[in-house]
């Protein structure tokens, strides 16, 4: 009997030993089609570029709650793969709150660096306690540091779901950080002011997002009146200009300065509302307002570059929802309702900027006509085939949500909403009387791009309690749209950073069941999936026994 237990003990020890040894030497084989668990080629290329050491400090160590221990393990596995691509990449795990006596000061210091902690409530013996974790990594290279958020926040998700989502985007987070830190010289982006453009707080999320890749400065065109030459010279120092929803007309002098900036090689992104209309204007007693064309005095300017922004509104059957309150006081209910003037625009995936892009939300967009001229015009986004345009002035009434749209009227779709113009731009003021005398002007420039988007709100983030929300997030319906990614890709593309677009585009596409097929063929598949396996089993049994009887029967 004693020997029996000794044998069991030995067997158990062998079992443990085998598994511990297996943990030391192992191999992983990725069977998935899109190589979900293998580093992408972009990530490998970016990792291979470093010639000086890169030190990655991951602030996850110590006594972690289970979900975060998992996040740590996955991070470790991923970083090991990065490290195997390039010996210069080193990483280690540290516990920032290790020294209990200095917890307060360390936390203040980390938060000062912009590292937001994650708070988790842990239940132990019926007592709830709060734990604080800093799910961040710091990538250090060449005296520069880039913060990597390991935890991706999603509203309403449990901490376990949050960690699972985060694990999926770890590769992107680190690849992005490595790409960021390896940018040798940051390009310059100018935000144009002075013509009633969006306030900074509405641009805040987008500008913060691009700050790590580019330097940002503001340029006021108002100074054109006093010192146009200086304004142009300043502007020329920038690689790209963003004009976000101007509401005041451009003077000829201002146009000429912008024109010369473009001809001299400056890239530009124009987000233009040709019609004055806001959802807020509708929220009055009558529930209606009149959409009027706005005069920005840019028509001739865009005409020369080959596009015309029409003073109309796009009404699309592929819409995004708005939320309306009904009832009063405590009885009010908030209901999402269809809003045909806010198109949900899907990309056609034929250009790197819009490849694999989530749906983009437009709000009171205008249609764009492309005109015949020598420049190449690529339509990046257009309204759906089931859309139509409505001329202005027009009264827009909230009550339209109560009348179902007549499908037959939606026969004028596929209107361009975002157009990329490329070519050797010649001045819009060529062969014309110049409004100003400037030095360093050109009639014809080098190869250049400009992007015209017919909705100023595309770049506008919402605000909650005075703080900007993420661009593309709608606080009313709790939906995310691809606006930010679209603009990021656009800017990366215009500034020739294709590598950045490509790492963003590695997406795990999730195959979805076809709901139409399900409703049509549900019963068929139910019968097949239950009946056939059982029938096969019975058939097998019948054949098996028949042969056995024949064999042994006689």
């Amino acid at each position: 009997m004693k020997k029996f237990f000794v044998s069991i003990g030995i067997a158990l020890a062998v079992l443990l030993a085998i598994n511990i040894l297996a943990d030391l030497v192992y191999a992983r084989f990725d069977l998935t089609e899109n190589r979900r668990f293998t580093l992408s080629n972009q990530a490998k290329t970016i990792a291979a570029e470093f010639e000086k050491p890169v030190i990655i400090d991951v602030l996850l160590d110590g006594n972690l709650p289970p979900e975060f221990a998992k996040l740590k393990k996955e991070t470790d596995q991923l970083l090991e793969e990065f490290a195997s691509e390039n010996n210069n990449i080193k990483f280690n795990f540290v516990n920032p709150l290790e020294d209990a006596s200095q917890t307060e000061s360390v936390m203040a210091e980390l938060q000062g660096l912009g590292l937001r902690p994650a708070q988790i409530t842990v239940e132990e013996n019926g007592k709830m306690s709060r734990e604080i974790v800093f799910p961040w990594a710091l990538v250090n290279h060449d005296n520069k540091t880039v913060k990597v958020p390991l935890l991706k926040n999603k509203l309403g998700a449990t901490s376990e779901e949050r960690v699972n989502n985060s694990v999926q985007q770890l590769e992107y987070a680190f690849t992005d950080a490595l790409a960021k830190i390896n940018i040798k010289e940051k390009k310059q982006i100018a935000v144009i002011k002075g013509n009633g453009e969006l306030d900074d707080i509405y641009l805040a999320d987008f500008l913060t997002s691009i700050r790590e890749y580019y330097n940002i400065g503001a340029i006021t065109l108002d100074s054109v009146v006093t010192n146009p030459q200086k304004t142009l010279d300043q502007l020329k120092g920038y690689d790209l200009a963003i004009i976000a929803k101007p509401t005041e007309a451009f003077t000829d002098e201002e146009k000429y300065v912008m024109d010369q900036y473009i001809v001299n090689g400056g890239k530009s992104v124009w987000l233009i509302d040709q019609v004055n209309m806001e959802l807020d204007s509708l929220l009055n007693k009558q529930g209606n307002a009149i959409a009027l064309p706005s005069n920005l005095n840019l028509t001739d300017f865009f005409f020369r570059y080959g596009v015309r922004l029409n003073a109309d509104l796009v009404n699309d059957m592929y819409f995004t929802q708005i939320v309306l309150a009904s009832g009063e006081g405590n009885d009010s209910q908030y209901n999402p309702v269809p809003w045909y003037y806010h198109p949900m625009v899907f990309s056609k995936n034929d250009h790197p900027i819009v490849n694999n892009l989530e749906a983009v939300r437009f709000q009171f967009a205008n249609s764009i006509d492309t005109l015949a001229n020598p420049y190449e015009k690529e339509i990046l986004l257009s309204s759906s085939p089931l859309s139509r345009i409505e001329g202005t002035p027009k009264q827009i009434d909230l009550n339209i949500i109560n009348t179902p749209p007549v499908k037959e009227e939606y026969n004028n779709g596929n209107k361009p909403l975002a157009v990329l113009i490329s070519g050797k731009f010649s001045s819009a003021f060529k062969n014309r009387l110049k409004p100003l005398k400037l030095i360093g002007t050109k009639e014809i420039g080098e190869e250049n791009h400009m992007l015209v988007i017919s909705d100023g709100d595309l770049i506008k983030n919402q605000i909650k309690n005075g703080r900007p929300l993420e661009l593309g997030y709608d606080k009313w319906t709790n939906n995310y749209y691809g606006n930010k990614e679209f603009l990021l890709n656009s800017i990366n593309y215009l500034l020739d950073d294709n590598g950045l677009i490509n790492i963003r585009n590695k997406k795990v596409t999730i195959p979805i069941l076809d709901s139409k097929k399900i409703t049509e063929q549900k019963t068929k598949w139910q019968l097949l999936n239950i009946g056939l396996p059982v029938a096969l089993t019975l058939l097998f049994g019948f054949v098996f026994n028949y042969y056995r009887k024949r064999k042994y029967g006689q």
Partner: protein
Amino acid sequence: MLAIFKREIQSFFTSPIAYLVIGLFLTLNGLFLWVFKGKFNIFDYGFADLSNFFLLAPWVFLFLIPAITMKSFSEESKLGTLELLFIKPISVSETVLGKFLGTLTLGIIALLPTIIYVYAVSQLGTTEGNLDSGPVMGSYFGTVLLMSCYTSIGIFASTLSDNQIVAFIAGVILCFILFYGFEGISTLLTDGQTSLIIKSLGMKQHFESISLGVLDTRDLLYFISVTAFFLFLTLLQLKNMNR
């Protein structure tokens, strides 16, 4: 060994037990996945993958496999034919292995018709045939490994008592502890590191890891070593009984 294996298979398929077990497995799965409303329903789930099936299958097998294995040694022990085992020309280990492979084959035969689900899901996808084969292959492979663990545990349990009911319940309990028990214990711990280690002792974590479509040598070795461990225990127990 081959003789035992053949005899096992033959005795299964000449008695109604095999058809009951396989039929029950297929009907249960079919109903939960395609008919009943609930968290396993694939139509409601909406994604073109089979993760729901592989979420359900380990639990169904948790009961079915001990049901198949419960008689393997307890019956012989009750009928007194166990003694014959030790004087037969084939060795005890070959008998154990034969019975193990026989039961495992039965399990695999039960699993085979479910390939129709794979076809169904790939046909119903928005893009036909868009199903990612990696996780599906991984999951089937993982299920076979899981079944081999269940089978060896079930066979071991059947040596513990000559009462088939006792053997069945012991088998289910042992399988449950190894499949889910460790994970259950790990949720009670607050220290994440220890909790992860405890969790990795259980089969569920290794099964899920293979189901994602990543073949990891650590997961393979885990299943193989656990199977071997219980087969060895069976042998030990049989030899102990002979004394």
